[in-house]
């Protein structure tokens, strides 16, 4: 049954009405509508999973595990399967996700379509690198198996392809073995931006997972002060004796934000106070410590609807990457713009990326990425970000489509040099642009031979 519903991404901006369907059986998945986008759990921030007045297919009920090889750790599952379900089922058996974003409430299909990255990107690459194969439902109703060997162009056009090549129906994902459900964490305090870059580049301090929380409000001598949070999966011998089952963790308490915060609650003063407190607490942890995977990877998942913190008007997440050669200057300039603008953001994250994915439209490339949340306080935010886009471009960087709700099509084209090649793949499998979204129309991502 189809229904009109108002949908938005995790940023609550924009919110648009679409014709929504939610298949519960595999064979109910179809491509009869003129324009379709598949949607997972709606965790992309902007308009990637919106389709104003057109069709949206909710994939969340197609979440069956189809095969699991206990020897190799290869899991075959439907695209609507959430990472949460995979963790719940396979951690007790000694397996973990090869790549995970900062929330477990995302689907496999969403992870593939956005070619998401995690704190281990500099070591393990993006999600797509761990997908052995997937099945794609095409615009003409046929299905095609894709792997790096079989239909490689379509494979890498779909990895990071934002759902615009077809509907991902099921996939085979390589899980990684773990000895425990715990992480061995080491924090490093950096008093300013140069110090944090030095730590992130220091091979001695580096670890499989690495990310820095960075203060985007403080200027002067605290400009760019950060906490680097490095970690690796703890081995059995690292656990204290009182933990009898290495794969069992204490369930984290869940709280929920029952309503949208009023706009005045977040201002540069309250966020500044939070940042100082947070910095103080994290800074005090100077020696290595154990943390369960849930608290290390998904601290925000314990607060249901945390996106309501930014108020009804919603927020944008701005994430970009700049290559190493320009990074030092680029980060100084762009972070400087944020500090100057006093646009409150708690959650600014700095990370070093490893090499670029083969995905034609994949976001990560070698360099540094910075991500921060910006409440939509007024219309002047948009030209401010356009200005930042120009800076990112100047420094040969790019923005992330899964976070985007406002980028200009020309900017997008300059940031993604392989877009033309992608358009040919799109034209081959979807000549009438059946698979479209508000994002794809805004950025004019139609196929073109």
């Amino acid at each position, binding site marked *: 049954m189809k*229904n009109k519903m108002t949908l938005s991404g995790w940023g609550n901006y924009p919110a648009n009405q679409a014709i929504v369907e939610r298949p519960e*059986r595999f*064979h109910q998945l179809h491509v009869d509508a003129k324009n379709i986008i598949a949607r997972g759990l709606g965790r992309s921030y902007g308009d990637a999973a919106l389709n104003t007045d057109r069709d949206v297919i909710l994939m969340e009920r197609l979440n069956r*595990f189809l095969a699991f090889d206990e020897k190799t750790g290869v899991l075959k599952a439907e695209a609507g399967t959430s990472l949460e379900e995979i963790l719940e089922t396979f951690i007790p058996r000694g397996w973990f996700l090869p790549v995970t974003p900062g929330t477990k409430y995302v689907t496999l299909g969403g992870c593939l379509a956005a070619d998401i990255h995690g704190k281990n990107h500099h070591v393990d690459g993006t999600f797509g690198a761990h997908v052995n194969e997937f099945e794609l439902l095409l615009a003409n109703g046929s299905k095609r198996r894709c792997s790096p060997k079989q239909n490689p162009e379509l494979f890498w056009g779909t990895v990071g392809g934002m759902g615009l090549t077809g509907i991902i129906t099921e996939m085979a994902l390589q899980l990684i073995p773990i000895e425990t459900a715990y992480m061995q964490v080491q924090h490093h305090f950096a008093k300013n931006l140069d110090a944090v870059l030095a730590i992130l580049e220091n091979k001695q301090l580096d670890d499989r997972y690495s990310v820095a929380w960075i203060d985007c409000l403080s200027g002067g001598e605290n400009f760019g002060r950060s906490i680097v949070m490095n970690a690796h999966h703890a081995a059995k011998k690292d656990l204290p004796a009182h933990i009898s089952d290495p794969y069992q963790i204490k369930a984290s308490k869940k709280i929920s934000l029952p309503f949208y915060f009023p706009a005045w609650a977040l201002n540069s003063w309250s966020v500044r106070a939070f940042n100082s407190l947070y910095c103080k607490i994290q800074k005090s942890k100077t020696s290595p410590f154990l943390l369960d995977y849930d608290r290390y990877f998904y601290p925000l998942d314990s607060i249901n609807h945390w996106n309501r913190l930014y108020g009804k008007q919603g927020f944008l997440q701005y994430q970009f990457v700049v290559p190493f050669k320009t990074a030092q200057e680029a980060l100084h300039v762009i972070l400087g713009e944020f500090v100057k603008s006093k646009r409150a953001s708690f959650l600014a994250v700095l990370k070093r990326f490893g090499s670029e994915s083969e995905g034609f439209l994949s976001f990560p490339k070698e360099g540094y990425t910075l991500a921060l949340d910006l409440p939509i306080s007024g219309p002047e935010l948009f030209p401010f970000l356009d200005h930042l886009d120009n800076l990112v471009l100047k420094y040969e960087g790019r923005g992330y489509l899964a976070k985007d709700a406002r980028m200009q099509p020309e900017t997008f084209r300059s940031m993604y040099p392989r877009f033309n090649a992608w358009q040919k793949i799109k034209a081959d499998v979807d000549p009438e642009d059946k698979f479209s979204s508000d994002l794809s129309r805004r950025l004019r991502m139609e196929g073109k031979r």
Partner: protein
Amino acid sequence: MKKGILILGATSSIARAAAHAFAAKGHSLFLAARDEDELDRIAKDIRIRFRVEVKYASFDAEAFGEHPHFFQQVIQNLGGLEGILLAFGDLGDQKMAINDFNLSHRMIDRNFTGACSILSLGANYLAKQGQGFIIGITSVAGDRGRQSNYVYGAAKGGFNIFLEGLRNRLFHAGVRVITVKPGFVDTSMTFGLPGLFLVASPKYVGEKIAGSLNKSQDVVYIPWFWRYIMMIIKSIPERIFKRLKL
């Protein structure tokens, strides 16, 4: 000994959630529904998640003639039977059914006659065995006739009474019969329907269904407050009720 539970109408989201809850407790399952491709996917999923034995076969509630053979097959496969969860049903389209008796007839077969047919076989088997259970999923719609869905309501109401009678009969044989009445649940039956409130997730309902075996209630409303909502609705005098647009 855990011999296995037969789940009829196993492809619905409520049945799937209940199957998960049973499997999580270590029960083997036999899934039955019309759509075999779908059963295959659900069975694979449960085997991987819970590492229990899951078998399945196609079953058509309206094909009464085939029920005896089907039931025999289940017993052979499971080597016995712990109990039955009957989860099939069809909301149908009341507006169409008003003018087309064939549609009403189908709704009654799918919600009532089919249930009587297969549960009669199940009841006799369990009575002979002297233990086991039958859980029937009906609906709050069966508690009082309303103009918007009285054909479905009548079939479910009939099923309520059938279960009541079975409970009375099988009590003496040591077999439990539980009537489950879900309120609004977030399923394909209700997806996008206007005017719904306090909608429960299939997962919640499934866990409550499996959990009903550990409690003593004969008639279980899920969520619990539907008992009181229906109590109020049933207490409205007919001379007033008939004037309402429900």
